């Protein structure tokens, strides 16, 4: 194989961004093995469930869906962070998003598999999962789900991988002193990327196109997830607002998760310069908007139910407001809305610590929100709301599997940061290194004036 000439962008932060890749510290191994132990416990719990049946969970009749489905919805929601940050903000031309795109997209990438795993964990007969393909009925909302989620997962992988390509090539060429297999891995994954300006133009173009598609997918996916509930006629679920409400909550919790992840990366990998505090301030504004949007949805939803006063709807309504779920419901409202809004407005500016606290609270609260949407309805099903007063107590198996899913996600993320740059080098580069023969061709403007300017800069540089 003839070695191609390759060109790489110049980035002042290159050293600090690539620093985490050089070595795996003992702290890493400690973290990884800790997470692996949690995963092991989860695997043991799942094994128990597989052997004896779903009876080892706290689920019963009429509460047929519990923590697993909550996890599913939550992970899908978490996944929306990445696509929101990198696709929607790309379309909006928000330049500040660039350093955090990859960190956010990685959340998407690593939470989606665990959303799927939650569904499999919930199935009575996971060995028959292929029946969904063999006997799939398109009338079932679950098949819409399968279609949307698998397409979303696949597209996120591609979107993520394409924007990673130039950086993999850069590591391939620049990093030395790594094991041979690792180098070989970069060589294969970089697909012979050369960093020609033509390649960058095409890459930008494809990413722009995909961003449009991904934006549509984000909206579709979470709406379809909510339709699994919304398409039934159960009180509390059967509302047209459930789709937009799920979507907004998803982007809200996703963005909050980005704050947490960025703060950790900044701290652990000393990336203070590459991840300036302005980023957090921009995210803060977004979070304030989302939290207000969330309370708007809450009021729209519950005022409609309360005012309408339909008996079976009110059964579920009171379950949430004053009944068995009142602690979770009000706790959720405080965690998702009241405290974070206060923190974000009063304390959050220029203060990462407070932002992280808000982010954690929002995510705990959003998990509870998913729970409180799903379970109370089941405790008061239509016909039997006076009779079958369902009580649901999750068992250790469910918690162990839940923890394992989160541990798995964190593990994948942590490992990823040790092998690939978590801040996109080429997107944040000051200039792409000169490509001597090729003059950049003018490209049609779609969304990125930025590319235009970069090419222009290159021209100027060449002309000097």
């Amino acid at each position: 194989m003839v070695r191609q000439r390759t060109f790489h962008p110049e980035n002042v932060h290159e050293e600090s961004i690539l620093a985490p890749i050089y070595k795996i510290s003992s702290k890493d191994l400690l973290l990884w093995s800790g997470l692996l132990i949690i995963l092991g416990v989860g695997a043991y719990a799942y094994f128990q469930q597989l052997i004896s049946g779903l009876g080892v969970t706290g689920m019963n009749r009429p509460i047929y869906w519990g923590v697993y489905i909550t996890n599913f919805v939550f992970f899908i929601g978490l996944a929306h962070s990445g696509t929101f940050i990198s696709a929607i903000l790309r379309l909006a031309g928000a330049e500040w998003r660039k350093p955090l795109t990859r960190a956010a997209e990685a959340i998407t990438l690593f939470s989606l598999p665990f959303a799927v795993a939650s569904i499999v964990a919930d199935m009575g007969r996971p060995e028959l999962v292929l029946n969904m393909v063999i006997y799939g009925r398109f009338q079932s909302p679950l098949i819409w789900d399968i279609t949307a989620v698998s397409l979303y997962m696949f597209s996120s992988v591609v979107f993520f991988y394409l924007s990673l390509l130039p950086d993999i090539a850069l590591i391939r060429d620049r990093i030395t002193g790594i094991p041979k297999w690792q180098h070989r891995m970069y060589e294969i994954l970089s697909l012979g990327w050369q960093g020609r300006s033509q390649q960058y133009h095409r890459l930008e173009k494809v990413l722009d196109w995909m961003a449009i598609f991904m934006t549509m997918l984000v909206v579709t996916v979470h709406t379809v997830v909510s339709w699994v509930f919304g398409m039934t006629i159960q009180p509390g679920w059967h509302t047209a607002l459930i789709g937009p409400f799920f979507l907004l909550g998803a982007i809200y919790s996703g963005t909050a998760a980005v704050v947490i992840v960025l703060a950790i990366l900044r701290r652990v990998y000393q990336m203070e310069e590459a991840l300036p505090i302005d980023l957090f301030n921009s995210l803060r504004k977004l979070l304030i908007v989302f939290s207000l949007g969330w309370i708007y949805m809450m009021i729209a939803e519950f005022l409609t139910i309360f005012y309408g006063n339909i008996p079976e709807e009110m059964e579920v309504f009171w379950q949430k407001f004053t009944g068995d779920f009142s602690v979770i419901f009000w706790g959720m409202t405080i965690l998702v809305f009241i405290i974070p809004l206060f923190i974000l407005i009063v304390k959050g500016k220029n203060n990462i610590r407070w932002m992280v606290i808000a982010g954690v609270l929002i995510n705990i609260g959003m998990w509870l929100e998913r729970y409180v949407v799903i379970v109370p309805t089941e405790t008061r099903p239509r016909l039997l709301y006076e009779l079958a007063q369902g009580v649901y107590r999750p068992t250790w198996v469910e918690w162990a599997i839940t923890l394992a899913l989160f541990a798995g996600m964190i593990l994948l993320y942590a490992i990823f940061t040790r092998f690939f740059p978590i801040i996109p080098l080429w997107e944040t580069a000051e200039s792409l290194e000169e490509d001597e023969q090729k003059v950049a061709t003018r490209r049609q403007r779609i969304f990125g004036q930025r590319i235009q300017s970069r090419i222009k800069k290159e021209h100027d540089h060449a002309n000097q």
Partner: protein
Amino acid sequence: MTKWSMVIDLDKCVACQGCSMACRFENNTPVVSPDEAALGRSIFWNDVFPLRSEEESAIASGQAKFLTRPCMHCEDPPCTKVCPVGATYQDTEGIVRQNYTRCIGCRLCTVACPYGVRYFNWYEPTWEESLERHLTPDQIEGRAVSEGPSIRPKGVVEKCTFCVHRLFKERDRAAAEEREFRTEDFVPACVQTCTAKSRYFGDLDNPNSTVSQLAQSRRAFRLLEEAGTHPKIIYLHEG
């Protein structure tokens, strides 16, 4: 086309739970331990319960109103609509059936059913020894099909089938005896056993059948008519 339907006269019903028992033995319904039952995991294809959350004293003094509830076999069932694999389906005679071999245990049908008539096998079904020896042999089993009283694997949903295996059996019997199959030949176990003879079964499409006649009664009502499911279980009000 035949449209199987059941009429339950609540005025005659004495809430003896005989229908529940007969159903259990006819359909090999798994038995659960008291602990599991307390969790709400007992399986009653045909359930009998007080209509409002009556107090114990009301039940003891005979003041409580009871309802017996098999599957409604809706004409527009919400459960078959949502099944991703077609494991639950409505056959040409309007019976909502369940194929255990195809069911993946996602439980979307159980949450979609507004009547709560669908049950899930949380564990491998078990019976005490004496019961185990008397399981109904009439099991519907074929290639990739296992329905009705067939022994369920763990992790699948099951439900009342109007004792569809009896229908098959009666059809076969009629064929063997070289005569026409009459709708009167087929009755589910609960109807056959009903102590107070409060249950009637027949063809709703035949205007002369008992169920059709009773469906015209001024006492007739169906559960959750507002849900738009068009149940084929018709109740007759008390009094």
